[in-house]
């Protein structure tokens, strides 16, 4: 499988704290890869590096054959990497539909004067953007469609806000979706629904997905491959079962049993 995203010896430190330490990672076209790890393992920093929020100290980020290190975040997203936020960052005072249409900025071209004069080109583009937003929202069934499209985003419930985060990310027409804890704070029914949804995103939307998740049921349900991080270092990689039983992963999550050092016997 061709690699859509490839990280090569990626490093990032804040002051003396090494957050990502010579990390190598490949995400193939059409794969769903989960990143797990205890708090502070560097998972969200990884997303911030990929999307250009932080610039890495060293290493390469190759997306679709192109090194994207140093590009401005809006350019990186425009190349086809869209993300959601663990701490929801919706445009709360804009309508649900506008949240998605705002994400089409990079894919549209109308200049200000064309918009001000409402030229045929600007009008056609607006119609396309509108249709695209409705299509992306329709993916979520009646949760975000219908009259809700015209409601401000702050009127949505917590779970619907999480869904809108994903809808907004798909509004940028990405190839790779980075989902930062999509099921955080959800009840079991909603979590189950989110698991189904992530599967559908690949099946019907055709997205490649890199996901950070703490809920192991979700991770088990969606992942082709699981990568475990601890202190910015990849400690395990493989199928869910391989990683979940890896002693280093268990140690990272639970610590080691306190044992007295035994002298090596004869």
């Amino acid at each position, binding site marked *: 499988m061709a690699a859509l995203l490839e990280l090569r010896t990626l490093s990032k430190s804040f002051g003396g704290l090494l957050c990502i330490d010579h990390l190598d990672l490949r995400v193939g076209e059409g794969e769903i890869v989960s990143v797990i790890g205890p708090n502070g393992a560097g998972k969200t920093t990884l997303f911030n590096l990929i999307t250009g929020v932080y610039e890495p100290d060293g290493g390469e980020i190759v997306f679709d054959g192109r090194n994207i290190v140093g590009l*401005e*975040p*809006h350019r990186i997203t425009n190349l086809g990497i869209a993300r959601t936020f663990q701490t929801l960052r919706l*445009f709360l005072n804009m309508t649900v539909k506008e949240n998605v249409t*705002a994400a089409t900025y990079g894919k*549209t071209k109308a200049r200000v004067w064309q*918009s001000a004069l409402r030229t045929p080109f600007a009008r056609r583009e607006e119609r396309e953007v509108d249709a695209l937003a409705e299509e992306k929202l329709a993916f979520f069934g009646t949760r975000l469609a*219908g009259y*809700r499209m015209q409601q401000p985003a702050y009127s949505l419930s917590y779970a619907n806000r999480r869904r809108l985060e994903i809808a907004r990310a798909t509004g940028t027409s990405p190839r790779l979706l980075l989902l930062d804890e999509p099921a955080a704070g959800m009840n079991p029914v909603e979590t189950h629904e989110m698991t189904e949804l992530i599967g559908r995103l690949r099946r019907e939307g055709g997205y490649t997905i890199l996901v950070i998740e703490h809920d192991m049921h979700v991770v088990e349900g969606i992942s082709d491959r699981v990568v475990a991080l601890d202190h910015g270092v990849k400690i395990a990689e493989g199928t869910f079962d391989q990683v979940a039983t890896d002693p280093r992963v268990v140690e990272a999550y639970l610590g080691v049993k306190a044992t007295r050092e035994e002298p090596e016997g004869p």
Partner: protein
Amino acid sequence: MPRIGTDEWVEQQELRTEYYTGLTAPARRAFDRVGPGPRFFAFLAICAAFPFLTDSPFLIRVGVNVLLFALLALGLNIVVGWAGLLDLGYIAFYGFGAYMYAWVSSSQFDVHLPTELAIPLVVTASALLGLLLGLPSWRLVGDYLAITTLFFAQIFVELALNLDRINLPWRDQPLDLTGGPNGIPGLDPMRILTIDFLQTRDYFFLLLVVFALVVVGLYYVNESRTGRGWRASREDPLAAELMTTPVNRLKLLAFAMGAAIAGLTGSIFAAVQTGVFPQNFEVTLLIMIYAALILGGAGSISGAVLGAVIVASVPEILRTPENARLLFYAALVAVLVATVRPWQRLAAVAAATVVFGVAVHELVSLAWPAGDEGASAGGSLGWLLDSWILVPAEHQDTIGNVGFVLMVAGLLALTVLGGDRRLVVLVPTIYLAAFVWENRLIAQPSVTRQLLFGALLVAMMTRRPHGLLGTPRVENPI
């Protein structure tokens, strides 16, 4: 139907939607049906008819001021309302536009460009200045940007005051750029194609055309990708950037467009006034523009216009005591209608106030005849008020002052009381307000004017903190 991914609430929303209720419901539904386009044309038609309804140069001049204010508020709305950047240097663009027009259309440098060339030049130069002064917004937000841009506003006035004797090595005479405190007088009137703009009335129509074009253009821009980009960057700059919006570029665009509109307005202002002076562009004016925008509702085009109409016209209306009195009673009635509900209770309060006044009037007349022999102010409401309000012939000031203190006590009591007790206190407080008005305030129009205007702003902002036509906003819980 699959259980997962469906939402019964959404399907039933038609049934749950609450429509307007009460007496004003049909009017409000009709207003909604008309839509923004026809509403705007109706407003333009009223404005266009205005110069034909009056010959008074003073009123035409007020009309010009209203349109100047509206244009300034619309330009400021781009930066503050849409892009969410607190720009206190905005007034500098207005002043720059005015001075720029003066440089190319007066004897200052003996340059007399045709207006068709001067205006595009002014607009372009203002937009470029906007780009330049917008640069700090890349790194600064909120209060930090505000104080930095306030510096630009201050330095503009200082430059205008002092750039009249610039010594340049290659010139014998010092260069006079701004005319210093005396400004630049004697500007050319505008002439566009074959139309000469000679009277204030002509400029009113020019401003109306510019206003119409700006409103339509801004309305479409707000609905476009650019408008969404601005609002997204205001809501959450990081999320906007990560959703393909070039936030920094859009900030500069907002500054440039706001500056272009301010510069254009400035050039017309300079032509109307046939001169530019540093004191035309002081921070007081900036505060009034902000007041207009915030009162109307930042982020809303119609709000900016309404705010400008109020801020530019109400102080003028209040200049004559007769108008001030009408406005006072109209505001009193409006506040009661808006706050006392249901209408049965409102009717009871109104009736009680009338009865209370007449009773007090009769009792005092019997006990102390001089208590009601003061000069009645007369006017169109005189016949109504004469048998209701007391105007003592002696000690009018002292009694008025006592009444003022009692009224303040009544207002304070109203804020803490609830239920029926509130209604009981309300009646004498209304009467006291009218009493103080007739005995004290009407005698001092200049103080009254400021006081009433301030009270009006406070009352309107308390009732609608997000502005008259603004939308309530929630802040990002970050």
